[in-house]
């Protein structure tokens, strides 16, 4: 009995439960499959076709991704002659790791003092700003800054991957990623900072707990963040890094077999984590729920945001690199400045 309660204690310990079980890695794996399935199925609906179908007809081809993954696992991994094999294999693995990392500090729910399954950990994850515990892998009061910092590492590893493969298309893709990452990081940073200024805090949990969804408090920041998120995770219309008609698959050109799967996953994971931040900052997060239901509610909204952003594939083409850069620096950056000032004014007048 005692052993079970210890086990139970460690199982539900947020650093483990939040990151591994829910809404962590396991959910991520499921969502990754679902999102790709949805992307293909939604595109198929718009495009007069059926989409994945024959792998489990009853669920509309949901197992297609599993079938694809199986195929990739058993197909040959070709490692080019001229590359360093260690780095070549390491690069996608590093990329995957780095892409999941930011999730550790994203709060997904709060822990009430009693009544929740997480209540025993109330004091460990106590947030003095809101007087409650915060359900996240690792709690700091400045999680907004930390999340942005961890997200900003991700592009470096894409560039690393392109460099390692020693392919011209890959290097061109990496160069594009370099240029884009600078611009979208600025957008995301400005959008979040304007929220932080508006709510006078660098704690995501506190922003949520104010009870005002950021999309009402600062719609401009929401727009800028959403577009920054699309650029950051290479979704259409900013699928510039992997533009398949020009660059084959960009940095992932030389990868095959299971390594290719690993190179594809991080973009979706990055998008999903951005969706969590978007939900927390702009869509009211877990309110009015707490504990596990709160986390589920946040995850649900994040999934919807993710699905909406993958749906863009069936509507848009692809911008050119310079157009995306011009758009982000010439139009969205001023808009984000405006959002910053707007945030300060509204924060001063309304939220105070």
């Amino acid at each position: 009995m005692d052993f079970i309660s210890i086990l139970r204690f460690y199982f539900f310990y947020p650093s483990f439960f939040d990151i591994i079980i829910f809404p962590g890695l396991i959910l991520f794996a499921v969502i990754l499959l679902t999102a790709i399935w949805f992307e293909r199925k939604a595109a198929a609906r718009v495009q007069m076709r059926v989409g994945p179908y024959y792998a489990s007809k009853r669920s509309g081809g949901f197992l297609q991704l599993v079938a694809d993954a199986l195929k990739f696992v058993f197909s040959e991994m070709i490692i080019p002659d001229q590359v360093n094999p260690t780095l070549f294999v390491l690069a996608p693995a590093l990329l995957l790791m780095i892409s999941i990392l930011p999730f550790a500090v994203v709060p997904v729910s709060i822990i009430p003092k009693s009544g929740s399954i997480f209540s025993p950990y109330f004091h460990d994850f106590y947030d003095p700003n809101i007087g409650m515990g915060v359900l996240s892998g690792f709690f700091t009061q400045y999680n907004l800054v930390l999340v942005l910092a961890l997200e900003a590492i991700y592009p470096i590893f894409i560039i690393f991957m392109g460099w390692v493969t020693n392919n011209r298309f890959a290097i061109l893709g990496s160069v594009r990623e370099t240029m884009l990452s600078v611009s979208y990081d600025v957008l995301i940073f400005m959008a979040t900072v304007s929220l932080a200024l508006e709510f006078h805090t660098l704690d995501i949990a506190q922003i949520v707990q104010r009870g005002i969804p950021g999309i009402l408090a600062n719609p401009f920041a929401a727009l800028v963040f959403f577009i920054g998120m699309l650029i950051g995770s290479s979704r259409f219309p900013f699928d510039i890094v992997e533009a398949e008609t020009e660059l084959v698959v960009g940095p992932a050109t030389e990868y095959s077999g299971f390594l290719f799967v690993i190179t594809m996953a991080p973009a979706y994971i990055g998008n999903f984590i951005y969706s969590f931040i978007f939900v927390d900052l702009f869509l009211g997060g877990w309110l009015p729920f707490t504990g596990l239901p709160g986390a589920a509610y946040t995850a649900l909204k994040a999934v919807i945001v993710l699905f909406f952003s993958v749906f863009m594939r069936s509507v848009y083409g692809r911008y050119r690199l310079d157009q995306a850069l011009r758009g982000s620096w010439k139009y969205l950056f001023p808009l984000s400045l405006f959002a910053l000032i707007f945030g300060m004014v509204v924060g001063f007048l309304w939220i105070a």
Partner: protein
Amino acid sequence: MDSVKKEPKEYKKENPIGLFGDHLNAIATGLKYFAKPQRITLKYPEESIRLPTGYRGLIRLYKDVCIGCTLCAMICPADAMKMMTQEGKKLPIINYGRCVFCGFCVDICPVDALKETGVHDVAFSNRRDLIFDPDKFNKNYDVPFTGVVRKVRAEVDEKKGIRYVPDS
């Protein structure tokens, strides 16, 4: 020659305000089709199309009708149809590896010894099988299929584009 010479048109250059509307319009159209999909996929192995009359599918020979006039071999643009002597009679053989299904041989045959069938989906395991000697060529491929395959007919529809109706 056109008497009225048209001035070259110019498309409207985009304006920033309309741009946002265009974005919304595009997304709305996407969502419209997402909500009400218009699918024209044929679920092929389960459904199969009954091809219209006159479709130029595989060709079959009526051995008894053939008079061996060689016109079909002469007009064959791909050198697919050749003549061979069988029991003292000249009969055509066909190599489906070369046939381009132009239907000239069927049209030029003076006694209608060749006929187009509505069959186009056949598979062979090696190239030798693609050459049909007169006996093999004489068989009917257009047998009514008894199996799980549903035969459908494609119809042009004003709303959906192409609609598949069960073939009765």
